[in-house]
C-alpha cells in the first residue's frame, strides 16, 4: 500500500513536472540556504581557529593619540587646538629596546616594514619592500624556493641583499636557480640601487578572508629594513608601529599591560600625547560579526522560503485535489476509506517536499562549496545536516499536506462524483 502510494505520487509528479518543480522552489531555496549556511558555518569555525594561530593575529598595534582621546578611533574628542606632534613625542629605538627588554616573555619582536615602492630594473618594474624578520612574518606564508633567506647579520647591518618572488625571478633570469648570486640593478627617479640576489621565495595564495582581515600584501622583493629606510631604526622616530606577540599570549591583557607601561615610562610627563595599543582581536570580532550577520540573513531567507514553500505545497495540493475531485469520488466508490485518501495525498505532499529537499541539498552543497571557495575557507557539509534536511522536509510535507489531504478525505463520494 505504501509502495503503491509512492508510485502513485511519483506518477502525478511526473505528469506535472513543471508545476511540481515550481511548487518546490521555495523548499529548494530554503533547504539550499540551510545547507549552505552549515557549510559556511563549518568553514568559518575552522578558519577562525586557523587565523587565531596565524602570526597576523598576534600583531600588536601602537599608535599615538591626544591625551584627551579614548583611543585611535575616538574622533569626538580630537582637539584641533592641541599642539602639533614633535619628533620628541614619537616612538623611537628607545621605546623598542625597552619593550624588547620588559616584554621579552610575551613579545617576539618589533615589526619593521618600509615600502620603497616601484623601481625600474632594465625595462621591468619591481616592487621592493624593506623588512625585518618580524616584518617578513606578516607578509603571508612565504617559502624559500631557491637560495636562502636574508640572515640576521644582513638584517642588522642593512646589507644590499634581496629576496625575489619566484615569478619575478623567472621573468628576469629565466629560472629561480639562475637568479641566485646575480646583481639586480634598480633605479628610482635618479637614485640607483644594487642588490645581490640571495634567495627566491614562493608565496601561498591569499584567501579572500585573509584579504578582508589583513589586506593583500602582494609579492614584493624583500631587502633588509635597515638598508631600505633612509635612516636605520636607531635614528628614526615613528608615529606608529607594530609588534608581534608570542604564541599563546593573552592579547587583551598584553594590550593593557603595554599601554600602561609605555604611558608611565615615556608619556607621563608629555603634555599632549600618549600611547594607544590595539590588538587584532577586535578585527576578528568584526569579521565574526559579518559572518554571523550573513548567517542570520541566510537563515531568514531559509525560514521565509521554507514557509512560503510550504504554503506553496499546500496551495498546489488544494489545487490538485480540486482538479482530481472526480478521481477521489471514483476511488471512494471503489472502496477507498477516508484514511486511504488522506494517506494518498499526504504521501504526495511529502514526496513533493522531498523532491524539493533533494534538489535543495544538491544546490546547497554546490552553493556552499562555491561561496566558501570564493571566501578562501574550506567548508564541508556534515552528513547529519543532510539527514536533518530530509527528515525536516518530510515533516514539512506532513504539516502542510495535512489540511488538503483531510479535505480530500472528507469529501462526500456523491458530491465528488458529480463534480464538474
Amino acid at each position, binding site marked *: 500500500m505504501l509502495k503503491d502510494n509512492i508510485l502513485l505520487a511519483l506518477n502525478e509528479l511526473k505528469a506535472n513536472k513543471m508545476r511540481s518543480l515550481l511548487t518546490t522552489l521555495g523548499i529548494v531555496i530554503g533547504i539550499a540556504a540551510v545547507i549552505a549556511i552549515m557549510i559556511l558555518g563549518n568553514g568559518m569555525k575552522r578558519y577562525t581557529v586557523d587565523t587565531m594561530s596565524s602570526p597576523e593575529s598576534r600583531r600588536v598595534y601602537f599608535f599615538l593619540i591626544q591625551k584627551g582621546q579614548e583611543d585611535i578611533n575616538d574622533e569626538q574628542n580630537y582637539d584641533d587646538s592641541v599642539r602639533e606632534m614633535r619628533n620628541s613625542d614619537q616612538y623611537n629605538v628607545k621605546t623598542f629596546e625597552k619593550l624588547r627588554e620588559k616584554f621579552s616573555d610575551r613579545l617576539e619582536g618589533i615589526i619593521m616594514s618600509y615600502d620603497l615602492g616601484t623601481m625600474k630594473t632594465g625595462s621591468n618594474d619591481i616592487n621592493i619592500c624593506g623588512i625585518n624578520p618580524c616584518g617578513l612574518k606578516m607578509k603571508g606564508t612565504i617559502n624559500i624556493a631557491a637560495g636562502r633567506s636574508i640572515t640576521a647579520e644582513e638584517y642588522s647591518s642593512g646589507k644590499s641583499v634581496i629576496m625575489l618572488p619566484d615569478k619575478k625571478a623567472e621573468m628576469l633570469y629565466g629560472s629561480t636557480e639562475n637568479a641566485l648570486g646575480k646583481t639586480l640593478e634598480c633605479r628610482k627617479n635618479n637614485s640607483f640601487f644594487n642588490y645581490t640576489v640571495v634567495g627566491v621565495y614562493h608565496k601561498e595564495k591569499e584567501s579572500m578572508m585573509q584579504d578582508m582581515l589583513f589586506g593583500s600584501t602582494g609579492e614584493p622583493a624583500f631587502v633588509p629594513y635597515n638598508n631600505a629606510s633612509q635612516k636605520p631604526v636607531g635614528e628614526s622616530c615613528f608615529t606608529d608601529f607594530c609588534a608581534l606577540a608570542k604564541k599563546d599570549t593573552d592579547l587583551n591583557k598584553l594590550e593593557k599591560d603595554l599601554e600602561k607601561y609605555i604611558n608611565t615610562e615615556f608619556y607621563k610627563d608629555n603634555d599632549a600625547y600618549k600611547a594607544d595599543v590595539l590588538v587584532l582581536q577586535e578585527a576578528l570580532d568584526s569579521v565574526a560579526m559579518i559572518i554571523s550577520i550573513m548567517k542570520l540573513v541566510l537563515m531568514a531567507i531559509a525560514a521565509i522560503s521554507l514557509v512560503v514553500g510550504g504554503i506553496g505545497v499546500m496551495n498546489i495540493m488544494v489545487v490538485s485535489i480540486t482538479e482530481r475531485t472526480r478521481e477521489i469520488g471514483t*476511488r471512494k466508490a471503489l472502496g477507498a476509506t477516508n484514511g486511504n485518501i488522506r494517506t494518498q495525498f499526504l504521501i504526495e505532499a511529502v514526496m513533493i517536499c522531498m523532491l524539493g529537499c533533494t534538489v535543495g541539498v544538491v544546490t546547497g552543497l554546490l552553493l556552499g562549496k562555491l561561496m566558501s571557495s570564493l571566501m578562501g575557507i574550506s567548508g564541508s557539509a556534515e552528513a547529519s545536516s543532510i539527514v536533518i534536511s530530509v527528515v525536516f522536509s518530510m515533516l514539512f510535507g506532513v504539516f502542510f499536506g495535512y489540511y488538503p489531504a483531510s479535505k480530500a478525505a472528507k469529501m462526500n463520494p456523491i458530491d465528488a462524483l458529480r463534480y464538474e
Partner: protein
Amino acid sequence: MNSNTVIDLKNIYKRFYVGTPNELEILHGIDLTVSRGEFVSIVGASGSGKSTLMNIIGALDRPSLGSYTLNGTDICSAKDGELSHIRNREIGFVFQTYNLIPRNSALKNVELPMMYARMRSRSRKKRAAELLEMVGMKDRMKHTPDELSGGQKQRVAIARALANEPSIILADEPTGALDSSTGRMIMDLFHKLHREKGITIILITHSNELAEETERVLTLMDGRIISERRGSRYAEGQYSPCTQ
C-alpha cells in the same frame, strides 16, 4: 425477508436541502426488493431520480428516510468505514463517464479495488490481467485511459467493477456515451456476466431496447416507481451472445 434477497429498500425518501426553506424531495417512498442473480433495469425520464436511487443502492449516499438492507447489513446505520467496505466488496460500479483514474494503466485501474481490499501486489496483478483478458482488453493492459476508445474504457471499467467479485453490479447508463454497436458489445458483456457468473445487475438506461432485454424493467417517474414488468425480450433470448 427471503434469504435470496440482496437489496431490500423500504419506503425510501431522498431530500436535498438547497438552502432553507427550499427542500427538494426527489424520491418519494421507494420500495424495491432485488433477489440474487436478477438482472434489473431502471428507466425513466431525465431528472426522475434514477441516479439518486442508484447512489443510495450503491451505498454512496444515505436515504433521508426509510430503511435499506444490503446482504443483511443495515446501510442507514452503518458508519462511513463500513460503507467503504461494502462498496469495496459487495458492489461494482460502472459509470456513464467510465471514471477511470487518469495517468494510470488499465491494469492499475483494475487493481485499484483489490488494493483497497489489501490484496497482495502479485496476486492482484494476476487477477487484474485475467479480468482484462475476460473483457477482451488483454493487449491493452499497459495503456492509460487517454489511449483507449470509449468502448475500451468501459470494458476496463467493467473489469474493475468485477475485481473483488461483488454480488451486485450497478451500471448507470453504461452505454450512454457509446455508439449503438459499441453499446451492444457492452450490453452483451453484462448478459454474459449475468448468465455465466450469476451476478446481480442493476442497469439504468435511456434505451428501451436494452431495457427490454432484462429480466425486470422498473419505470421511475418523479421519484416513484410507476410500473414494474418483465422485459419483453428477456426470455426469448433475442440478444446475441457476446462476440469478441
